[in-house]
């Protein structure tokens, strides 16, 4: 318990709350207009994706360019859920999504336990098994979900409309993120054994494939409401400053706690030296998957939040060129620095979306994307390791493992010694 109320924790939570309160007051008093409000929320969303990517690339050393694909999956899944609730007055999207993710999620966890005892199972075979199970269970969830969704709809209608909307929104965002995480698990299983750059290209290919599928979401995938390349409109604008901050703080705390645990040290050891990590008895594939799935979960979360900012989604938002943005942000902020990532994400949103849009002189509006790469270049040339380098604020700083920890302390409730 001592750890929870330590000085740095209080300092972190207090300042996070203070920043949120100040921003909320400024927004409510309309000193910051909706334009700046949007930019702050986009900054928060980018911070969430980038922390996910930092976990994968900065801490685990896997060069992933595919986060944007998971972001897109999260965005469209969550948007579909709230859209069906808002327009069709039906909770079927939420029920089916929740059932499908929960069923296949538990099946994957159960299978993983079983399959880990099978020796010599190659990733591709495991992938085939998981894929088959996921597809079967999703079909089952579809059938079950359409069966019970009227009941759930009626139940939600008993609640006040605003509360029901919030429930649908949060569950859409969370289950959308779980979808992204499960797809990343399936995809990462065979792909993560590739070497670093090849992994990057494969994930880039993944995000491009997702973008193309979204372009044809109404014809090929059969989701009429997504409207393919025309863009999905009519998504309720539910993402408030509050939700962005809640999720951002949660993501930061989860990442920080993960990295402070023995899991986190194993994740970092994979980045430092795979062979040495393997020699220490660390299951490299396991920790690569762990970081990849968690990072993609964050990306899906951010996508769900993003979808409800403007109420409009277009496949071009998920173009592969944009998929470099999180990469730019984490390198900008400093690889392996969470505070740097958060700072850089907000700075990126403020500069690119805010300052360069508003304050370029007349006749120079098209120079926005000329100035931006020049700023990028100058920063990279002056600080090749990012603005923050590997500096962290005290709350996020990693505790070096205490090497001489006696066996008496083992098995106690010390949060630093969670055993995998």
């Amino acid at each position, binding site marked *: 318990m001592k750890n929870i109320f330590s000085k740095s924790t209080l300092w972190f939570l207090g300042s996070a709350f203070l920043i949120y309160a100040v921003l909320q007051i400024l927004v409510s008093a309309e000193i910051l207009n909706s334009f700046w409000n949007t930019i702050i929320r986009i900054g928060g969303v980018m911070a969430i994706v980038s922390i996910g990517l930092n976990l994968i690339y900065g801490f685990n050393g896997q060069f992933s360019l595919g986060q944007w694909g998971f972001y897109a999956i999260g965005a469209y899944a969550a948007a579909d859920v709230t859209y069906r609730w808002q327009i069709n007055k039906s909770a079927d999207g939420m029920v089916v999504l929740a059932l499908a993710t929960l069923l296949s999620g538990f099946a994957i966890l159960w299978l993983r336990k079983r399959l880990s005892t099978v020796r010599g199972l190659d990733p591709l*075979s495991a992938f085939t098994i998981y894929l088959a199970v996921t597809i079967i269970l999703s079909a089952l969830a579809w059938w079950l979900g359409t069966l019970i969704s009227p009941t759930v709809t009626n139940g939600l209608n008993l609640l006040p409309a605003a509360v029901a909307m919030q429930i649908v929104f949060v569950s859409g965002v969370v289950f959308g993120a779980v979808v992204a995480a499960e797809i990343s698990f399936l995809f990462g299983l065979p792909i993560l054994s590739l070497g670093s750059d090849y992994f990057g290209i494969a994930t880039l290919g993944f995000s491009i494939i997702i973008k193309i599928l979204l372009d044809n979401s109404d014809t090929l995938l059969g989701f009429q409401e997504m409207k393919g390349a025309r863009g999905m409109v009519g998504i309720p604008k539910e993402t408030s400053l509050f939700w962005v901050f809640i999720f951002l703080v949660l993501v930061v705390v989860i990442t920080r706690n993960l990295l402070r645990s023995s899991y986190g040290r194993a994740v970092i050891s994979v980045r430092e030296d795979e062979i040495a990590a393997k020699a220490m008895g660390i299951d490299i594939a396991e920790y690569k998957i762990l970081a990849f799935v968690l990072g993609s979960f964050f990306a899906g979360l951010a996508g769900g939040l993003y979808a409800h900012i403007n109420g409009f989604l277009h496949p071009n938002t998920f173009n592969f060129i944009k998929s470099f943005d999180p990469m730019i942000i984490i390198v900008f902020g400093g690889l392996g620095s969470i505070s740097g990532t958060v700072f850089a994400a907000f700075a990126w949103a403020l500069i690119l979306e805010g300052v360069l849009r508003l304050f370029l002189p007349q006749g120079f509006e098209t120079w926005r994307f*000329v100035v931006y790469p020049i700023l990028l270049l100058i920063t990279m040339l002056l600080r*090749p390791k990012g603005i923050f380098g590997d500096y962290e604020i005290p709350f996020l700083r990693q505790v070096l493992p205490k090497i001489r920890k006696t066996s008496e302390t083992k098995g106690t409730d010390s949060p630093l010694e969670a055993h995998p």
Partner: protein
Amino acid sequence: MNTSPIVLLIQKIIKKGWLGKTFLALITLLAIWQIIVALQANPSLFLQQVINGLQLGFVYALIALGYTMVYGIVRLINFAHGDVFMFGAFVSFYSITRFQLHTWPQWLFPSIPHGLGLIIGAITVMAISMIACALLAIVVERIAYKPLRSAPRISALITAIGISFFLEYFAALNFVFSPNFITYKRPVEVVTWAIGLNGITTLGNGKAPPDGTILFSNIALIIILTSVLLMFGLQFIVKKTRIGKAMRSVAYDKQTARLMGINTDAIISTTFAIGAALAGAAGMLYAIAFPQIFFWMGIIPGLKSFVAAVLGGIGSIPGAFIGALIMGQAEVLSAAYISTPLRDAIAFSILIVVLLVRPTGIFGEPEREKA
């Protein structure tokens, strides 16, 4: 312990990885099946598509060579390469429309045969765009990549992305290349031949081709010939000259090459310049084949060529060539026979499947220990 034959079979299936292999084999068989069905349904149409794919594949090959050479020597994914390709197309466009450079033999020697004059003119234009691209690449390398040579690899990658953005949006400014689609003026007239079992006929304007023939244009011929010539030139430079030898040694081990008295910085610049020159030529060829240029034209061909380079094994020159041909065929055939909107998705799925089977590409060497 008594194990039943079923358990033994399951164990064997697991040990040999048959489940995964069956899955991949099923996908591959499906693709092959599609191709066979297509070939049976209409052989001449199929061959036509293959030729279109070849034309595309050779252009991709030229771009892919630049990616693969630069990656081989500095381990950098040069995302700005596609924009160098765009720059090449624009340089050739301006030297044709503004300066009429493709007609210079006619001005100087009015008695020169028309065809020969055109060929010399077109080659001059291509040489100009190649030189311009090489200069651009050298400048970019000096400004953006050289200072970061000792920094982490990712910093150089981010600057490459930055340079790519910069080139695109700078080109989109009104006084540079303008943000509009521009119709490209070909330096040569298009001549189409219909090749059938009854011989070759030249198609005039608006004449429908006879049944059962394959259309083959001089554009395809130009693209294939030029690419092959340039690739042989590259092979010659890399394999037979002192610079090529130095390039190979730098790619193998930079530190040792420096100790042996090789000016590694100059060699790296040269590599960038050669790759960019090939991209410049590719830009002109692409614009001749698909006569519409705009500031974003480099992104998608650049990406696909890059994927081609990875497919063939990045760092390997024959690999880039084979990978590019596969990409060209995959794109054209899947557009024709499977689904037009999904053609890029299919091309990328092929990449992922190939990487699963051969993790470093078709011709790639197994990854060396991280230095």
